């Protein structure tokens, strides 16, 4: 189950435009070596590394080591918390329940 916290982590991780661009590029290319990500971008190597770490920690990408190279690909279920309707509905019902309580109070 995607908790509200997981949804928030994924959403916040992808809220950074540069990081999202890195993620989109990995998604587009299937599998990309970190070195090639740095080459094809205006972002510095440490910055790319940091974004890759954040993406990995959010469960959005997986890494594969091949000698000196690390290759990245999109984690198949990484976006699940966002697409997972459950998280959305949990928030939805919590809010509606609060509305219900307010309305009951108003009509006392």
């Amino acid at each position: 189950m995607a908790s509200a916290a997981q949804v928030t982590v994924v959403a916040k991780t992808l809220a950074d435009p540069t990081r999202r661009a890195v993620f989109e590029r990995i998604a587009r290319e299937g599998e990309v070596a970190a070195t090639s990500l740095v080459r094809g971008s205006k972002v510095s190597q440490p910055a790319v590394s940091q974004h890759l770490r954040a993406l990995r920690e959010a469960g959005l990408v997986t890494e594969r080591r091949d000698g000196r190279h690390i290759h990245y690909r999109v984690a198949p279920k990484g976006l699940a918390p966002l697409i997972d309707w459950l998280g959305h509905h949990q928030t939805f019902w919590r809010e509606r329940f609060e509305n219900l309580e307010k309305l009951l109070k108003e009509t006392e």
Partner: protein
Amino acid sequence: MRETRAITVEKVLPYTAEKIWHTLTSSELIAKWLMPNDFVAAVGHRFNFRTRPMGDWDGVVHCEVLACEPSRLLRYSWKGGSDSSTSPAPRLDTSVTWTLTPAAGGTHLKMVHDGFVLPENQSAYDAMSPGWGRVADRIGDLTAQG
């Protein structure tokens, strides 16, 4: 195998079951706390909730009253969403159950929204699918909510 999940929200409210029941079953009041609707508290009655369209979903929730025991139990089906594998609002075939139980200090109100199928279609997660744009749009909403 289809694995389903439920959402539960519950609380003891300092009101009588009758008063809460009225709020749960009056179309006019439901519109105030939930969504615009044409609800009638009668088993077999079909009705809709209307919300903001999302992606290729028109925002209409199709419902039918499945159980109705005044001041005790209310259950309706809750169907909506889109069949598109990339939709941010995937197809839902679920039900919502409200139970009211007398409790110290008022009434224990419990809502269970059951029947969520966990997405398994890998293509739905292909970030570069046409759905990605819509998913990205939702990120802002979700961040705002979080």
